[in-house]
């Protein structure tokens, strides 16, 4: 039973608190106890599978800014699933969290993705490189201050960039993120389209013109 795991976890680690969750049980853990808690859950509560490892960026200037989230599943105790959340340490520009590659080798690429997208430094990771964006990309795209359209930078390979004269540009948003409507029987109506079509790259967005990504 899931409640067993959380209650025995809280017995062992009194600093662990419940976390509001709509579906599965979740707990907050102080960053310093994170590895000990995860090791206890793996070894003594049979959470042998790390389903997911991700992070939350709450907002620019929020305290705490970043939270890492671990999804654990037990393959021997049916239906036992637990989420562990821990607020990151370090600074807002360089948040840190301990690596759990030593507990679950599968955490390796998850932590690399988390580092790539949020810039969280996983201390003790054997090979903390970017995994989706290329080495040398200067930003962490899933951070709140990073615009969806992107920021102009150089192409990954210098001689190709020089040969083609092309850069990584901010994508034309043309009315904002494109959203598909679900439940439409008419497929033409379900096509992804801009939510607010009153503005485009040529017509400034009426209220927040400073948010436009593409300069003319």
């Amino acid at each position: 039973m899931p409640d067993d795991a959380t209650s025995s976890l809280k017995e062992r680690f009194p600093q662990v608190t419940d976390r509001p969750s709509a579906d599965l049980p979740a707990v907050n853990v102080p960053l310093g106890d994170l590895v000990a808690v995860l090791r206890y859950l793996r070894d003594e509560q049979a959470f042998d599978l790390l389903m997911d490892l991700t992070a939350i960026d709450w907002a620019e200037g929020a305290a705490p800014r970043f939270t890492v989230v671990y999804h654990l599943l037990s393959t021997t105790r049916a239906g036992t699933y637990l989420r562990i959340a821990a607020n990151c340490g370090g600074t807002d520009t360089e948040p840190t969290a301990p690596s759990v590659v030593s507990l679950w080798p599968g955490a390796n690429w998850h932590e690399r993705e988390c580092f790539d997208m949020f810039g969280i430094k996983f201390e003790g990771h054997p090979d903390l490189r970017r995994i989706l964006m290329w080495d040398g990309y200067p930003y962490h795209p899933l951070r709140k201050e990073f615009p969806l359209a992107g920021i102009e930078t150089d192409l990954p390979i210098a001689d190709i960039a020089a040969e083609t004269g092309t850069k990584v540009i901010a994508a034309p948003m043309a009315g904002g993120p494109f959203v598909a409507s679900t439940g439409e029987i008419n497929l033409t109506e379900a096509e992804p389209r801009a939510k607010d079509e009153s503005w485009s790259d040529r017509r400034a967005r009426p209220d927040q013109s400073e948010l436009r990504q593409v300069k003319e």
Partner: protein
Amino acid sequence: MVTSNTDLGYNSKVEGGVVVSRADAMINWIRTNSMWPMPMGLACCAIELMAVGGARFDIARFGAEVMRFSPRQSDCMIVAGSVTYKMAPQVRRIYDQMAAPKWVIAMGACASSGGMYRSYAHMQGVDRIIPVDVYVSGCPPRPEALLDALMKLQDKVRREPSAKRLMSA
């Protein structure tokens, strides 16, 4: 054709062993009917590209069935799928490795314009790094659309001043 010639084989006395044509027509005829594609399959469009190679749509009817995975042996790069910025230099590198004459078909919305990927990671049209001859709309395009693109490209190649280019090269 009604003829008094009853020989089944080629008779050099009748034809004279000479065919008169223009160099352009000859060269372009050869090029259009043996246009070997470089399948630059990057996403779901590559599945439709495979369908084009299958028996139902059969790109072999147009002489382009020999998908060459070596750029040195291919004439026409079919960019099938979404080109990310991380992949873009490699696409260009492979294009550079192809021997001239070479052509490019941008297959599908992503390769043509970035398609639905208006984001930091996605190149907004492969024509920003390589010259594209034919764009195919669709997400993904029907196999017939790619065949149509190939025929349009063949039409384009038929009108190229190939002999002049060969002499000046």
